[in-house]
């Protein structure tokens, strides 16, 4: 072995660049060690350790936000560190903090092992953070599988509930299908790019940069375009975009509420991070193909999500389908991204707005759920404003922001996406989005109406309403912070406004 190989490795494998991910992995293992070493009654420290650890990692990322690795590639080009990647790291860590907080509340109502839950959440989060920075199709696939396999377990975590098991099976089957689509697409692209008869052929087609220059040299290759569509379809499954959204309502209903939140927020966001980096760099020369495909995804997703959500009574299904419509909004941004300078920033802004509002809503849902986590009906919210004004307020702020009502931050997200779409000239999609917003008002408002305007009439033979869990101090502070930032960011964006400037 040549000494230069080792030198190269040392120069490339900058482990310091992935400190947050390593810290998360260590933390995840440490939780298992705690379980082994401590007696059972002291397992309470596990969620605390997970939360404190996550906050430390978050602090680390924020403190080194502008580190020297940003803008470079490491590990022989497997990873590419960008400002967007840093933003997404913060996003996934925030989401993981909230998932752990909600899991504390939700797991207390179940007789399930606790430690593994936090362990898997941490590992999946690390996988998502890598995924958002991946610069290589192989790493993309491996990291995506890390994430997905972790989610298979989490979705069916409350295994004594038949609906949860059904959800787990559905997610497994559909997930396997989408992974195979993605893999097939990658293989096609790799194979075509290696064809020596084509101009610009390369043996390194897994690398985004190499593949991009090959695609630029062959802008109308048939096999490559099939590969691109397959890769996009695989990602569309993660996002829950039409026509790959069919698993959403069942899985969202069956999964434990914190996991539903994890799916709705993190898993969706990771799909968009991947979609953005693929469509803006690797597939950029296939605009003729991307634009119609993304336009179709966006329009159909917007309409389907909103219309399907109209008739739902189970709030988990409702929020799942409304999440589909949010994916449609974000896809509108992605479709605009190649022509509108502020679209990428708008998408990140929208994702953060969605994170804040969604966890506010999921936080309330977790507290209202009974022992049967899948049974959460709109009726259970009747009279919430009287029974618990704090939760009702958080719910109203969260739903208002999801509906895009000013002065909440969700409105700003929608506004920025609209402006981007206008800059890109996507007038038809804007019309669809406007219709979608108006429809969405109906079901969001219906939910708020149930909480504020209606009272729960208990009939002796009717089903009883599950007992509400009182809000403890830490969760209360977290939910209050979510609601407050949702309101404040709606009219004062401050430094976050700088994200939106074209890069």
């Amino acid at each position, binding site marked *: 072995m040549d000494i230069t190989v080792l030198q190269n490795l040392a120069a490339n494998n900058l482990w310091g660049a992935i400190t947050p991910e390593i810290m998360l992995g260590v933390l995840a293992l440490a939780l298992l060690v705690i379980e082994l070493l401590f007696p059972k009654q002291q397992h309470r420290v596990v969620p605390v350790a997970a939360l404190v650890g996550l906050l430390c990692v978050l602090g680390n990322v924020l403190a080194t936000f502008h580190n020297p690795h940003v803008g470079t590639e490491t590990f022989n080009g497997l990873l590419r560190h960008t400002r967007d990647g840093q933003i997404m790291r913060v996003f996934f860590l925030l989401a993981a903090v909230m998932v752990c907080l909600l899991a504390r509340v939700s797991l207390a109502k179940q007789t399930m092992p606790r430690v593994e839950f936090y362990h898997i959440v941490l590992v999946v989060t690390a996988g998502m953070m890598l995924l958002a920075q991946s610069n290589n199709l192989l790493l993309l696939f491996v990291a995506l599988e890390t994430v997905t396999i972790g989610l298979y377990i989490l979705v069916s975590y409350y295994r004594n509930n038949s609906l949860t098991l059904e959800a787990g099976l559905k997610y497994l089957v559909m997930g396997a299908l989408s992974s195979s689509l993605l893999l097939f697409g990658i293989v096609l692209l790799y194979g075509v790019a290696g064809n020596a008869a084509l101009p610009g052929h390369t043996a390194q087609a897994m690398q985004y940069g190499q593949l991009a220059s090959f695609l630029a040299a062959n802008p109308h290759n048939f096999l490559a375009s099939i590969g691109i569509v397959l890769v996009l379809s695989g990602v569309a499954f993660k996002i829950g975009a039409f026509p790959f959204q069919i698993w959403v309502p069942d899985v969202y209903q069956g999964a434990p509420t914190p996991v539903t939140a994890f799916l709705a927020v993190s898993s969706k966001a990771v799909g968009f991070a991947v979609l953005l980096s693929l469509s803006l760099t690797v597939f950029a020369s296939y605009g003729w193909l991307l634009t119609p495909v993304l336009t179709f995804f966006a329009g159909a997703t917007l309409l389907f999500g909103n219309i399907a959500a109209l008739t739902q009574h189970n709030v988990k299904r409702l929020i799942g389908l409304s999440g589909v419509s949010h994916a449609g909004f974000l896809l509108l941004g992605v479709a605009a991204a190649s022509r509108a300078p*502020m679209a990428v920033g708008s998408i990140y802004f929208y994702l953060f707005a969605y994170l804040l509002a969604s966890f506010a809503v999921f936080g309330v849902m977790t507290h209202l759920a009974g022992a049967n986590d899948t049974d959460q009906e709109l009726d259970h919210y009747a009279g919430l404003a009287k029974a618990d004004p704090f939760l009702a307020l958080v719910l109203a702020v969260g739903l*208002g922001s999801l509906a895009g*009502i*000013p*002065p909440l931050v969700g*409105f700003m997200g929608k*506004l*920025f996406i*609209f*402006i981007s779409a*206008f*800059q890109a000239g996507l007038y038809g999609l*804007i019309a669809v989005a*406007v219709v979608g*917003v*108006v429809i969405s*008002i*109906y079901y969001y*408002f*219906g939910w708020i*109406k149930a909480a*504020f*305007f209606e009272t729960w009439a208990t009939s002796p033979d009717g089903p009883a309403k599950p007992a509400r869990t009182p809000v403890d101090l830490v969760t209360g502070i977290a939910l209050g912070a979510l609601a407050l930032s949702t309101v404040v960011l709606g*009219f*004062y*964006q*401050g*430094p*976050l*406004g*700088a994200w*939106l*400037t074209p890069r």
Partner: protein
Amino acid sequence: MINLPFDPLLVAILAPLAVALAIACGLPKRFAVKLAYVGFGLPLLLALHVWFYHAAVPQTSGYAFLTAYSTGLEALGIGLKLGLNGISLPLFVLAGIVGFAAGLYAIQSGAERLKIYLMLLLVMQGGLMGVFASVDIFFFYFFHELALIPTFIMVGIWGGRDRNYAAMKLTIYLTAGAMLSLVGLIALYVKSGANSFDLIELRRVLAAQPLGDTVQQNIFGLLALGFGILVSIWPLHTWAPLGYGAAPSSAAMLHAGVLKKFGLYGLIQIALPLLPAGLVHWSHPIAWLAVIGNVLVIGFVTIAQRDLKQMVGYSSVMHMGYAFLGLAAGSTLGVGGVVLLMVAHGLSVALMFLLSTSVYHRTHTFALDEMGGLAQKAPVLAALFVAATFAGIGLPGFANFWGELTIFVALWEFSPLITALAVAGVVISAIYGLRAAAAVFFGPVTPEFAKVAAVNPVTDLRWSERLPALILLAALMFVGFWPKSLSTALDATLAPAPAARVAAAK
């Protein structure tokens, strides 16, 4: 005291919001009510202050009291910029007056959960002051929505008959209207190339390089449709009578009186100067919709109403028809007339809603057939009601007269036929107005009313009800006798604009 040590516009917006926040934080009821007086009173005092000194302070790009605050989005051309020109000044004062009257009326109403009710009204008041003080279109829209949300909640919680249905319908219609106008505003932002929501900047860019005619027509069409829904243009008006019928009185006063003017204000302040070719293209369809739909059809529908509050709701839809007609005429006179009518109608419809609720408290019904003879027991209420009816019809001496007169004069230039039809509408409003006043107050006492009166002895208006009503009536007559108090500033802002519009038409 020309120069206050603070920005009067910002304080007028923030004072009600701050009081609302304080109430939300759990202030005891005694203090909450006292503080609410401050929250409703301060905007009124500041509005009168800026009205009084408007001509005396220096103006920047046509705006007095211009200030700008950063919210972190300068790169996108979004910032909180406050100022008043001749068009926004009358409406800013209107918002102050009606807000104060609605606030006083709400405080004495003794509504259930009064604290939350006052809090929502205060949020609405803050939003209303913001709508007319904003020079930045984004914040103009933003404050409108801020004021709109409490309306939905108030209809849903304190509403009367069919409140759930009414709240839902109101929400969906108004959201649709707001979204459409938002898309129009974004279109303006992108297509002008200014990449700014600042109205002064937009005017500058578009004066140097106007948009193409087709683009102007399309954007104007979007804005007219979106704002039109918000102002209840026929046939998209159905939310208005239903919503006002169900809304609690103070919310109806603020919404029908002030917030509804947002759409007209947007068309006058934004669409007319920036999209002159759009107005030329759309003026005839708008005028015909307004005169046939709003004035005549709704006029007859109003005559047919047997419910007092529904009647007031429909009459407000009808009067919006005149506003659209003045807008369609497009001349300085016509547009100035619309602004005058907006102020006059805002005051008079608020007064009508207030008095209708006071009538209801005495008769326990809104059904006109079950009332009669109330004037014997409540002469002051009757006098005020008749005065408000006269104002609504547009008799001289009230502000409405000047608004309608100038609109009709301007409309004659535009189309004599439409003018003739529109003037016929005045007769219709006289019919339903006087018939309602007669049915409620005069004639013999009906058996139903006698039954109610036997259980609840009928008293005349209390002073706590009289004061807000008198404030509104005084403002109506003040403008009625001295319209110049508003029209000087209005003329200074509007007069230079039509030249550009006429040039675009040729």
